[in-house]
């Protein structure tokens, strides 16, 4: 199915190494996240107060049963990080898909139909681009109350404009191309023209926007959960783990260092992927 309308790949074009590095990091972390319940040495909420603040295994006093040490309540950090990966990755993927889908649809409609539809949607895009997205997300999450679905929807709602802008601009130029005119001349329905002809040709630039945006969404989710406005305990999110770790940071640095490192690695993966996609174009 996909092969029929996908733009023909230029023969012999290779993607830059950044692309593969980024894909490898994201892929690996996704596998760990998916397999977390089986890979994790302990349950993410299992407390053992006798083992609280145990250092990572390679330090004196460490124990390989708790490879990255334990937190204040004696919970295994490594297991919590693995389960936390599920939150970060789920939020990143779903809000990019949702925001990307919404933005693409509206941008496509604005660019293709023009006139009043375009004026209304463009005004909406312009207005929202004048808002600082993370700040707005903080305000809305604070008022709405916190849950995973709300988090995903709010992050999608503050980022859809990025896609809409690019989708609109590309649709404007694709609309005038011969193959679209040909399809119309052959009597194809608007729906079919949009989904079979216009959408596939504007997808590649949107993928770049998606990859770049993914790193922003990961950082935004981490910041929100750091502030206590993301996923609620006992489910571990990396951002809230850093914030928890701060209460014991002079005693147990590993509680703040490792979760932040996990966020940074995921963001590096997304940025590498975006960089690679951009260079490949």
């Amino acid at each position, binding site marked *: 199915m996909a092969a029929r309308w996908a733009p023909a790949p230029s023969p012999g074009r290779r993607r830059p190494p950044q692309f593969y590095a980024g894909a490898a990091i994201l892929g690996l972390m996704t596998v760990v996240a998916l397999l977390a319940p089986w890979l994790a040495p302990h349950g993410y909420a299992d407390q053992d107060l006798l083992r609280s603040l145990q250092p990572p295994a390679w330090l004196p006093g460490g124990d390989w049963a708790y490879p990255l040490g334990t937190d204040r309540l004696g919970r295994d950090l490594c297991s919590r990080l693995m389960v936390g990966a599920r939150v970060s990755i789920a939020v990143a993927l779903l809000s990019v898909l949702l925001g990307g889908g919404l933005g693409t649809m509206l941008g496509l409609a604005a660019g293709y139909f023009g006139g009043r539809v375009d004026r209304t949607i463009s005004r909406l895009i312009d207005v*929202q681009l*004048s808002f*600082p997205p*993370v700040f707005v997300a903080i*305000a809305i999450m604070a*008022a709405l109350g916190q849950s995973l679905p709300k988090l995903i929807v709010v992050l999608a709602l503050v980022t859809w404009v990025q896609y809409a802008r690019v989708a609109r601009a590309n649709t404007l130029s694709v609309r005038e191309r011969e193959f679209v005119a040909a399809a119309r001349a052959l009597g194809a329905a608007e729906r079919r023209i949009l989904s079979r002809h216009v959408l596939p040709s504007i997808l590649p630039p949107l993928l770049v926007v998606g990859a770049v945006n993914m790193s922003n969404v990961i950082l935004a989710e981490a910041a929100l959960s750091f502030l206590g*406005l993301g996923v609620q305990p006992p489910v571990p999110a990396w*951002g809230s783990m850093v914030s928890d770790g701060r209460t014991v940071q002079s005693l147990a640095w590993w509680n*703040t260092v490792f979760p932040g490192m996990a966020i940074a690695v995921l963001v590096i993966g997304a940025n590498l992927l975006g960089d690679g996609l951009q260079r490949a174009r």
Partner: protein
Amino acid sequence: MGRFLVQRLVHLVWVLLAVSILVFLLIHLSGDPIRLLTPLDAKPEDVERVRRLYGLDKPIPAQYWDFLRRALRGDLGESFRYQRPALELVLQRLPTTALLAVVTVGLTVAVGIPVGVWAGSRVGSAADWLVSVATFLFISLPSFWLGVLLILLFADRLRWLPASGFESPAHLVLPCVTLAVYTTGLLTRLVRVDVLEVLSQDFIRTARAKGLAERAVLSRHALRNAMISAVTVLGLQLGNLLGGSVVVEAVFAWPGVGWLMLQGIQTRDLPLVRAVVLVVGTAFVLINLAVDLLYLYLDPRIRYDHGS
């Protein structure tokens, strides 16, 4: 020019209207606002009295109109917690956040532009590679984590700098560095690419051919072009710093508007949160306008009169 200004002003009105709607809706997003105003065990007739007192018995559009009319007069309600006008509280804290933002932007420009020009003029060298890798890391680190790490190292371990508060210039160092790491990474990468592009153009070859020193080529031609993207990034980032520093203000207990907003969130003090969102949103819009006007000055080729 005139038409451009009119366009921008129309846009400004739309955006401010959107800000006001967002701010108005915040209090309704949290459920029935009456629950925030009355104790749980209040008698139903008292609840109704409070509802009428605050105009919460009217239809939503009418409530919005009331809100807008009062907001235009600068009345955003009283903070539940401080029992003082919310707008006054926010405006009091604004300079503190602005200080953080301005110093951060200064730091960003002082490092980002020279390093970007330097790396961009020797692309492919080991130094350029190093700058690329470093700036890539800079834009990938979560700011709150960086802040926590800096505190751990420079305040807890080495005891060189204070971890939190707002008493002396030394207190500025860690929060500003934390904020500047991301913006510097962004700016350096942009300037580098700009310089790289400009240096391959004909007028640079001409400048070199006529014997202009490399230093002068860079400072007179490359730099000027790089300024345009610098203004774009910094304009956007200054706006983000005014609001987005919520996180960094939280890490360093910096008594600015972001910190005020978090306190408002924690104590369910919605009038206060609304006032912060309104002030920051308005500041962001005004900064964007200023950036657009600055383009006109920096790049005479940009004429907003034709097309749009």
